[in-house]
């Protein structure tokens, strides 16, 4: 008994680290797979808040940024309202399930949004999503 104690006291305890590389690799692969790099920078907008927002599949979304000055950006290019029809007719024919996501500043005059929607109707891109901020403190609304 006493001898056993003596032997184990002399030996330093060790944490096996051989599998750490494997664990790190697994985590690495997970994060590599889930990472989505931002494709477009768009325009700086302050999204409105809402509670009833639904999540949409990312692959189906095509973004329209409209800032408070009424500037419109699609695919990182500033566009005029009259160009929207052709751009989105193209997109809608490539993907019939397309959802147009409005990333519009909360202070934008509604008229601009309305004009864009009229063009979308003409382009047959009829599924739209008014993107909102994820609610942080409910009750604080516009």
């Amino acid at each position, binding site marked *: 008994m006493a001898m056993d104690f003596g032997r184990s006291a002399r030996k330093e305890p060790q944490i096996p680290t051989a599998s750490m590389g494997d664990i790190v690799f697994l985590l690495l692969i997970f994060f590599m797979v*889930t990472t989505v790099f931002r494709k477009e920078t768009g325009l700086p907008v302050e999204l409105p808040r809402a509670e009833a927002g639904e*999540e949409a599949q990312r692959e189906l979304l095509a973004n329209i940024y409209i800032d408070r000055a009424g500037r419109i950006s699609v695919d990182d290019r500033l566009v005029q309202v009259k160009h929207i029809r052709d751009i989105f007719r193209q997109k809608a024919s490539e993907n019939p399930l397309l*959802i147009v996501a409005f990333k519009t*500043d909360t202070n934008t*005059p509604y008229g601009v949004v309305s004009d864009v929607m009229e063009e979308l*109707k003409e382009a047959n891109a009829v599924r739209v999503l008014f993107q909102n901020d994820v609610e942080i403190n409910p009750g604080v*609304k516009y």
Partner: protein
Amino acid sequence: MGEVNTSATADISFLLLIFFIVSTIFAEEQGLIMILPGKKREQDDVVRVRESNIATIRVNYDNSLTLDKKPVELNQIKNLVEARILANEKTVVVLETHPDAHYGRMVAVLDELKLANARKLTLKTGKR
């Protein structure tokens, strides 16, 4: 026997791991989904709705709100619309927004309507 020194793989992986953790944005895109009516269709596709079944909510140029021409506050809308739908399930809610009103205001109202479970919903743009 020549052996490859693998003691640094964990360190390299850790560096990559930290990079991906920092650059990951989990897709959190939420929004209010609407289906627009599409191009002008044939005359017989047009749905006619009785005026008594319509509840019109206006967002005016100064961002004030009216429900059937009576002024209302944003926080009243959900209850009022719920009551209207309960009383008459054929109720169609028309959200008419003035072009000079703020987009955020219209979204706030739309949010209330979605919370009130208003399924028959139309967006309309007011006249200047």
